[in-house]
């Protein structure tokens, strides 16, 4: 059974433990700027929204990569960047309409969520279960998927 990250913004307190855990495990530094998950703070509404890649089926990043550096992890469904193959051309960063692939200038490579190989640190670090890693079929991914489908209308086939 494939699992996916389920994000419930209503439970997020904005503690940023997810960002710290992500940057520490993936980049070796406690630096939210290098986190692959990002918490957006809507002060006026008192609302925090954690946001990261949904590993969408369209895989815009993977389709756009000119050097085959982004591949599908068949086990987790994650689209994974190979540092060895990535040349840092950044085409995936503009191709992803969700804005979840970033360029890391210090390494010259792009970074995106890879679900930590199936054991996402952000979910483990979240103290309020705003981020959980659960079976894909019954997560509340619907909203993201709907959004994906809407975005899809821009440049995808309607076949």
């Amino acid at each position, binding site marked *: 059974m494939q699992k996916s990250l389920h994000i419930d*913004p209503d439970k997020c307190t904005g503690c940023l433990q997810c960002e710290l855990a992500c940057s520490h495990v993936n980049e070796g530094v406690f630096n939210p700027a290098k986190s692959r998950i*990002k918490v*957006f703070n*809507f002060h006026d*509404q008192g*609302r925090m*929204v954690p*946001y990261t890649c949904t590993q969408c089926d369209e895989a*815009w990043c993977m*389709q*756009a990569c*000119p*050097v*085959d550096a982004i591949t599908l992890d068949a086990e987790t469904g994650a689209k994974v960047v190979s540092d060895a*193959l990535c*040349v*840092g*051309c*950044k*085409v995936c*960063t*503009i*191709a*992803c*309409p*969700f*804005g*979840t*692939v*970033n*360029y*890391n*200038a210090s390494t*010259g490579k792009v970074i995106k969520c890879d679900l930590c190989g199936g054991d996402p640190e952000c979910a483990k670090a979240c103290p309020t279960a705003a981020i959980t890693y659960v079976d894909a079929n019954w997560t509340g991914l619907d*909203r*993201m998927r709907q*959004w994906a489908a*809407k*975005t899809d*209308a*821009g*440049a*995808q*086939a*309607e*076949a």
Partner: protein
Amino acid sequence: MQHVIVGAGPAGVVAAETLRKGDRNADIVLIGDEPEPPYSRMAIPYVLEGMIEQSGTYLRKTEGHYEGLGIQYRQGRAESVAAADGTLTLSGGETVSYDRLLIATGATPLSPPVPGLDLPGVHNCWTLEDCRGIAKLLNEDANVVLIGAGFIGCIILEALAKRCGNLTVVEMEDRMVSRMMDATAGGMLQRWCGAKNIRVLTSTRVAGIEAASGAGGDKAVVLDNGETIDAHLVVLAVGVAPNIGFLEGSGIKTDHGVLVDQHLESSAKGVFAAGDVAQGLDFSTGEYSVHAIQPTATEHGRIAALNMLGQNAHYKGSLNMNVLATVGLVSSSFGSWEGVAGGDSGVAVDEDGYKYLRLEFEGDHLVGALGIGLTDHVGVIRGLIQNETALGDWKERLQENPHRVMEAYVAHSQT
């Protein structure tokens, strides 16, 4: 069903793979005209700067990828198409029959109309063969002149600057990357290059290249202002034009490129076109344009293939966009970045920090953007434009501070 694809760049390769996914039994022939595995021209600068080997440019890295999918990859150069007969003739006279043909022949570099281009050490930077020729002359003592500071020129610029002794860039337009940058952005790029000891001459034309015998190189690049620059290596990047010459007399309609409808089908039934050679629907303008960019090539390739399979896939048009690093300064442009009549804009400029973001709106929709120094979440600009997201009160906030664009996106997608 016999599917023939001419051109083994990203559009051709994605099309071949999509065809195989949709039809296990079809015959799929992929024809490339270079003696290399299918590769990415985009990755050539990274070979030049020594980051990757030539094999790092290959579009697919798995050994036996094409054979494994039953895709026949062969070498050949298209000479002509007889659409009424369903045949393609290759140079040498061989004819190949097809039921469905995909033209994905890409583009060829243009040459500036000046004498001396045939001198040794004057190269385009388009093919792996060009790359090998340039690499031979590129070393820390080399004086290099790059002619053209457009999009391709600027990508090559970075690689040349890292490897050569002295680099001069000559651009005839009044700014760098004039097709994706306004004066503010182009000026910022030029200032940035200057700070890195790269001389960029804009509004300057090359009058000719001459043989020379000075210590500065065996060539002299003569400029229209009378100045002469010695060089060991001259690299040309003045633009490209779609490869449509072989379609002359075929009856297939062409303009700048092969004209295709929203199914990526040409005026000849059963003949499709994709990628840099195709002139298809532009999402932003509603007009038909050649968008010679990687995302369009792969999307074209996939949608053309679905239609070759008979699946009636409809393309909503491609969004012109680019991302570029010029000696480390990242720039990007999307859609109608120059703005639209009656539209509004939001601009943030930080000249000292080399940061710039210009957003262009039509009503409360984002229709274009231009950025310098942005590396995080830039893709949402595409998302917002393509979705035609009604920004509501976020439009005003973005006009005040364009850098809140990701927040605007999250606010609309997650709440």
